[in-house]
């Protein structure tokens, strides 16, 4: 490590003001601070500082995302080999998922970080860490078969128009990863929904070549129930891609078609535990999303007219992006409500609206993305009312 530090110190003058590579100073700084804790000391104010910084915070979020990512990768392979009717080991399934997923992650990071670095350089600022999380979230919430160029375009669009134009990390109004998804959803709906995109049937770099079995159906469980003709939930059964019925445990552990990150509620709960234990994610937001969803489901159940309206609450929580959105998207501190009271309202309304969209919107079976984006727009308003109450209290004290 010492040799590396010495080397960094040696090349540093090149990147400083007047140096040959000054145009890369933000890049140099990003790598240097990635490798070594900056040893700048406080000039004004407190003389000691907490060890937690932005890098640590983002690292924890990525750590929390890992279980969902790994299980998701395994599931990509699992679904693929089921679709081509071949029995393989757990490791083979995982490897297939890994190599199918890697290009998407690489593209997302390269495009997003490329823009972040360039903008930081233009503004002569340090590179903010926000995209380290968004960059992994984007491939996790897209269908596995999304073409790489779409990942690139969507990432570029959302980083530039959802984040940098507002001033960068910490200033954005909408969740960057969800904007990337929404962009693709409205631009290329055929690649973002339906029953053709959730299971990768083609081989990946030659791995897992085969023909799809007869009777294959790649629809997600939520897609199945949304398009079902069944008059009541008891007449309806969820089925996997081979036509076999799906059990609750399949849905809980994530062996169903869907976006990579969202399938395993179990892995998402592990991530939630990490976020709550470290205090990085707000348990209030997470809990209130589930409460809001629960209330909404009970209301819908009470006036049920068809199968999806009758669907019990635990199916809603296990299927689609509900849990993933609650744990990783709604808790984004920048785009969520910032006051503690506001978080309860913010989360509650996300859950409420997500279920409403699921049940009442015939065109699209999932409502989590739109619910969160909608509430992102309302988060400042919620905070406004919470803070206004505090201001009014002060004004009242003055009048008394």
């Amino acid at each position, binding site marked *: 490590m010492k040799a590396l530090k010495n080397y960094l110190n040696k090349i540093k003058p090149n990147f400083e003001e007047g140096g040959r590579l000054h145009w890369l100073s933000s890049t140099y700084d990003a790598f240097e601070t990635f490798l070594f804790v900056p*040893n700048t000391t406080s000039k004004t*104010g407190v003389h*000691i500082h*907490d060890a937690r*910084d932005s890098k*640590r*915070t983002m690292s924890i979020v990525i750590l929390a995302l890992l279980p969902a990512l790994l299980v998701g990768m395994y599931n990509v392979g699992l679904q693929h080999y089921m679709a081509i009717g071949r029995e393989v080991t757990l490791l083979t399934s995982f490897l297939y998922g890994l190599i199918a997923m890697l290009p998407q992650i690489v593209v997302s990071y390269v495009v997003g970080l490329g823009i972040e670095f360039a903008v930081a350089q233009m503004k002569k600022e340090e590179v903010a860490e926000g995209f380290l999380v968004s960059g992994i979230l984007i491939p996790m919430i897209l269908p596995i078969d999304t073409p790489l160029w779409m990942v690139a375009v969507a990432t570029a669009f959302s980083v530039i128009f959802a984040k940098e134009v507002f001033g960068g990390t910490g200033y954005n109004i909408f969740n960057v990863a969800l904007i990337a998804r929404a962009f693709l959803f409205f631009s290329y709906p055929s690649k973002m929904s339906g029953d053709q995109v959730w299971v990768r049937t083609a081989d990946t770099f030659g791995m897992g070549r085969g023909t799809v079995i007869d009777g294959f159906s790649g629809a997600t469980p939520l897609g199945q129930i949304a398009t079902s003709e069944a008059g009541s939930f008891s007449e309806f059964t969820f089925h996997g891609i081979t036509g076999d019925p799906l059990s609750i445990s399949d849905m809980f552990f994530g062996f169903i078609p869907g976006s990579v990150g969202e399938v395993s509620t179990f892995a998402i709960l592990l991530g939630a535990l990490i976020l709550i234990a470290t205090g990085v994610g*707000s348990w209030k937001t997470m809990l209130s999303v589930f409460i809001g969803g629960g209330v909404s489901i009970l209301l819908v159940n009470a006036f049920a007219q068809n199968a999806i309206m009758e669907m019990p609450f635990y199916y809603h929580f296990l299927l689609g992006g509900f849990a993933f959105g609650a744990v990783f998207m709604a808790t984004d501190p920048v785009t969520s409500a*910032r006051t503690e009271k506001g978080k309860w309202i913010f989360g509650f309304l996300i859950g409420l609206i997500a279920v409403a969209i699921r049940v009442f919107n015939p065109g699209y079976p999932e409502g989590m993305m739109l619910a969160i984006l909608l509430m992102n727009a309302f988060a400042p308003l919620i905070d406004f009312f919470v803070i206004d109450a505090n201001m009014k209290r002060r004004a009242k004290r003055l009048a008394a």
Partner: protein
Amino acid sequence: MANRITIKKGLRIPLLGECEETLRGTVTSELVRICPDDFQGITPRLAVRAGDTVKAGAPLFYEKNHPGMLFASPVSGVVTAIERGEKRRILYIEIKADQTTDYVDYGRKNVAALSGEEVKQSILDAGIWFLIGQRPYDVVAAPGKAPRDIFVTGFDTAPLAPDYDFVLQGQEADLQAGFDALAKLTAGKVYLSVSPKTTCKGLREAKNVVLTEFDGPHPAGNVGVQINHLRPVNRGETVWTLTALDVAIIGRLFNKGIVDLTRTVALTGSEVKQTGYWKMVIGTELKSLFLNNVTEGIPLRYISGNPLTGRRIDAEGVLRAGHSQVTVIPEGNDVHEAFGWASLSSRRYSAGCTYPTLKKAYRMDARLLGGPRAIIVSNEYDKVFPMDIYPEQLIKAIIAFNIDKMEALGIYEVAPEDFALCEFVDTSKLALQHIVRLGLDLLRKEME
């Protein structure tokens, strides 16, 4: 029995270098330096010239807009230098101290027999008015405006802070005289806040005050937090603030007739070999205290005051006005820590749970431990800010300098020190105290 208010929000930073409760002696130095910068919100005009002889208690300078507000010399001797900086701003006034201090005699006075106006004039004339602070703006109190109430804090919860019980031993009479004097200065009440652990009789049994116990972690001892819980400051109101240590100095003026700015100072910090209490006047050079008593071989940070709100000095520095603590910690600019973001090192301390807390006390240095960012994490400041105020929103209003918003969010109730813990825990490493100080100064200019 005193009322008790329990503070839940806050943080006790487990810092190494707690002060041992032993009085180790008196520190004197040949040269004494007074920095007008230590007194917030005043524009100094010199009352002496280089070469003048002064007695302890005689004025060195006065406030430009209020010539009656004098600033006393802590020692007797000859003014040797007046150092000026940019735009002729006075950096410090240096006095060569006599071997034995010769005090100006202001005459013993029985506070009970004096009127409020006489008490005020006595304090102003003696040049120790600066001991009284004011909210709003956190500046030296404006003598012209009567305070609604006066708030005194009887304990310090800052990291490694001196124990007031220990420091105030034997000063019961001075304390009571001080409280009696303060009571004459306001038509309202004098509120004294103590910790549940406070045993000092001068505080526990003080008369003429409203006694309240504040229980909880830092910043329970901050007078701003106490005001917010007892009787918050509204727009247009003024309250005065002091520490019990300053009350004793005011009491001494009336009981002994002299200005004795001697403080009992705690020498603390992880890099101090032998911690303890020393008596000294403000402006005393500290180098004899540091000699052979601090870690050698690494860069050190010397702080007059506590590690949250203190002023950075150097090894040649002096005890700054208002401080009863000197702290020495490692500077840390020689440390190269690899992959801090992934570190599980037991040396790193975090108030949150993103690092394992493995030790009881930490040796912290002066590094920021991260780069400055926009405010990202929410509810971070609130957790260490026990007032009915939204700190993050107030900070943003100050940055935007939106006066209406600042007023509505409670700017008149806060001082930079109230944001010290927010600044400590801040993931985005922003200089919050600096932001608040600039905001308050600008606002004061705008309003007065």
